[in-house]
């Protein structure tokens, strides 16, 4: 657990941090360090420089912005899990944050760090996908917005460029209700997801007007379950509609086997959790 030698900077402003990233192509952003440092210590990953964004002011709040809520880059899992704003507008994300790691990890790790890290079995990416979040990335050349659905590219790969910092995410206030549920590797909700699903649902006049359903732990990345969404949107949201949507959970998804589940088991769990997340989301809608 001894990393290779690296340079370390802790800029006091976003501009300085972006300068450091632009000037050092081998540099890597660090927020909570909960995922980056273990990789470095195992020497699986050896950046030449670590740019610690932890001292940049103004990034550690969750704020109400009229038509959306904004979660800053340094907001910890614990804040996301316990925020009344997140509970109201993205309950699925709050639950995903609450089920992330243990208390120590939740007090240091950041929601944005978890998204940027893009682990295939991480919780909050599913919550962000279901919430229809927009990622705000900054570089020396300015800011750009990336839809959650376009953000998770592959295993441990997000749409961020090496010189970009994810400065925050925006969650639209779109009404409806959402929920996240998973089976953790240690059973219950404990530890990374063997499989999990987040769902957001908005109903109007007895019809599911809109919905987003996301999976984690199942495929090569956290992703929307397109088949389930297609089945569910426009349905009556009944138990039969939930079952029909759950049935299509892994449509078009390459299910990956790991130590915690065979392909068949993970595909089965995807169906179970899509159904459970939908039921809970509907109850809140």
């Amino acid at each position: 657990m001894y990393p290779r030698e690296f340079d370390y900077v802790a800029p006091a402003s976003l501009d300085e941090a972006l300068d450091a990233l632009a000037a050092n192509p081998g540099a890597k952003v660090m927020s909570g360090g909960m995922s980056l440092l273990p990789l470095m210590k195992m020497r699986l990953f050896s950046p030449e420089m670590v740019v610690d964004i932890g001292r940049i002011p103004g990034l550690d709040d969750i704020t109400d912005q009229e038509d959306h809520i904004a979660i800053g880059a340094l907001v910890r899992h614990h804040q996301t899990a316990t925020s009344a704003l997140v509970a109201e507008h993205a309950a699925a994300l709050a639950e995903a944050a609450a089920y992330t790691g243990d208390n120590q990890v939740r007090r240091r790790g950041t929601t944005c760090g978890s998204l940027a890290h893009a682990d295939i079995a991480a919780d909050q990416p599913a919550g962000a996908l279901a919430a229809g979040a927009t990622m705000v990335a900054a570089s020396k050349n300015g800011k750009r917005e990336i839809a959650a659905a376009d953000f998770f590219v592959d295993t441990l790969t997000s749409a961020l460029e090496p010189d970009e910092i994810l400065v925050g995410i925006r969650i639209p206030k779109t009404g409806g209700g959402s929920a996240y549920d998973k089976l953790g590797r240690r059973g219950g909700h404990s530890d990374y997801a063997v499989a999990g699903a987040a769902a957001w649902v908005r109903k109007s006049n007895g019809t599911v007007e809109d919905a987003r359903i996301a999976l984690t732990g199942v495929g090569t990345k956290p992703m929307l379950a397109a088949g389930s969404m297609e089945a569910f949107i426009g349905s009556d949201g009944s138990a039969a509609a939930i079952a029909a949507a759950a049935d299509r959970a892994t449509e078009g998804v390459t299910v990956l086997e790991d130590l915690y589940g065979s392909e068949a088991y993970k595909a089965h769990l995807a169906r179970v959790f899509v159904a459970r997340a939908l039921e809970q989301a509907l109850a809140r809608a």
Partner: protein
Amino acid sequence: MSTTTSALGGVIRRKEDPALIRGRGRYVDDIKRTGELAAAFVRSPFANARINSIDVSAATAMAGVHAVYTIDDVRHLGPLIAQVPVGKLRPLLADGAVKHVGEAVAMVVADNRYIAQDAVDAIFVDYEPLEAVVDLKDAASDRVKVHDDLDSNVLLAWVGHEWWADVIAVEDPRPKIEEAKQRDDAVIVELEMVNQRLIPVAIEPRSVVASWNEGYERFEVYSSSQIPHALGGAIAKTFGLASNAVHVRAPEVGGGFGCKLNVYPDEILVCFASMRLHRPVRFTETRRESAVSTIQGRGWVATATLTGTPDGRILGYELRALTDMGAYSQNFTVAIPLLGLWVSAGQYDIPAYFEAKCVVTNTQTTDAYRGAGRPEALYYIERMIDAYAREIGMDPAEVRRKNYWKNDQFPAVNNTGLAIDSGDYETNLDKLLEMADYEGLKRMQAEARAEGRYIGIGLSTYLEICGFGPSVLSEIGFGWNNYGLPSSFSGSGLVRVNPDGSATVIIGTGPSGQGHETTWAQIASSVLGITTDKIRVSHGDTAESPMGVGTFGSRSAAVDGTATYEAAVKVRDKAAEIAAHLMEAAPEDIRFADGGAHVVGTPGRVVTWEEIADVAYRPHRGPDGLDAGLEAHAVFSPGNATWPFGSHIAVVEVDPETGNVEFLRYIGIDDCGNVINPMIVDGQVHGGIAQGVGQALFEEAIYDDAGNLLSGSLIDYPIPTAGDLPSFELGRTVTPTDVNPMGVKGIGEAGTIGSAQTIVNAVVDALAPLGVKHIDMPLRPRKVWQAIQDARG
């Protein structure tokens, strides 16, 4: 004379905790030596390979690197000294071949660990990979041999009635069992079950710093060890020194569970490097490294057969096991299944046959891990009793009751020829059933089943053998005389009343969280009447403490604790003579309490310990012929082991959709004889059950066919945390032993020995309506779900 106050049985807060809670405890890595260097190891990525060459030139040339050693530098020191030299002894560094992933190939010594690690990365080893053998049945067939120079991968077979045939004659149970099988009404149940390999995961990885002082001609070693004296002996023997030329200290030890009951090559190699480089040298395992550089535990595959009558009388039990030794032999390795053999029939008076073949494989060596052989053995018998009870439709509690050793049979000679000291199994079971409200649980389960819920009630009893050990066992190797240590596992204690009336107790154990500083203070206090806050206990320092063998096998209280008790009695008897002289009373009338001596029936007359000590050190003021001083040392060699026992119940609910197992309750009634500190006993049981939960539900050292350890990090080797555990409901019965004067048995491993099968029994019970008969541990949701699918067809 006797004491009027007794601190035995009292809940006294742990004297260890203030330092540990405040972060002031000192572990090996907290102890810095001036000028120390850091070691790191090149470890094999292959489970079986020839080494064609090792190129250390780039590493040696790196700034800050002091030395790189390979086997050529240390071959003259011989292989690692093992206590049970059966099988292949481990070379200090790989000698032309590697036999498991993680085997140390070269050692770098550098200014610091970062540079050392860089140098490790710069060493090029040319390996020629060979076919590895991991699967136990495959290995036992000798299709692929692990070591060319061993006749077979099967090192030996322990057989229940012949394990010590030339000393203990035991009848072969097989004819009786065969006869039973021929009965018309015979019910025969058979299961093949895996008791999977585990990684010990002490929270503090192993850590050692050694320095050779050429002025004193002595090694000064700090190591995170359960066996400081044995480590000193092994170092001395390796370097041809007297055992008193090695001073080992084991300061705070952050968990051991048996893995630190071994001497490791790195502990020898840091000594070697220090001697060569004239600097202290440190090695601390990293967390991930620890998974392959420290021993592992368990790893049995066995077929169990139980023959009985339709009304619950067991007529025969047979266990045929393959037990995984890993690649080399360390301190106990082949002896671990023997510990299982001794308790293989559990609490039952039944004809029982036991056979365990010790098989080498291309994996890390196995050795003692909490329970060591006994959890495996109890797992099998207790799983089988449940399977049998289900087969005949009888309540599993009643089947157990029907086959117990009865109270009037103790000491009961079991199927291995050893005598179980004492027991009262029915009282223990009854107390458990009452505390659990067993009948109520069964009603609750029936109601839940009617609602389509899968709730299971799992019961297990256990028998343990511990308190090692009887001197006679040294004849089969339970002793460390080949290390220059005592030839049997005796215990020792030194008790000193200081001139200021405080007392110092020095013991030869090597605790790693068991609370010896507290319980030993209670032992001394109970005899001397000095309050525990005035008693300080020190341990783990081989220059200071009497010769002791260390802390393992739930032995410390029963053996070293007894020695301390006896030493305290010697001091008390002497003090009574002094006090009697000062108070002009008879020594028989002296009682010790509240920090001094009293005369029975004469309140108000007190002689303090200061006054007694004052006289003890100028004997002309004392009774005629008084020897000076107020301290005593005792060595205790028990006549028998001790045999704790207990019964546990787990209540679980299984989510049939996901296979997730959730605890509803966990109840345990343990019997460890007399209790010194109930809080510490409960704490030991908590930790023990936690490790049983870990084995039952989460933990598994998973090797692929090529011998790669797939679960070598805590990401893939989940250990239970407080949040994963049920709230334990504990109680106890007290059946003292007569093996030692305090009547104490041992509690360090009981929780682990009793729990894994309790949980598996519960899960299988939950799924019984579906026809599930067995699921191999760990019961990860994927396996439970798969078992449900298979049962449903």
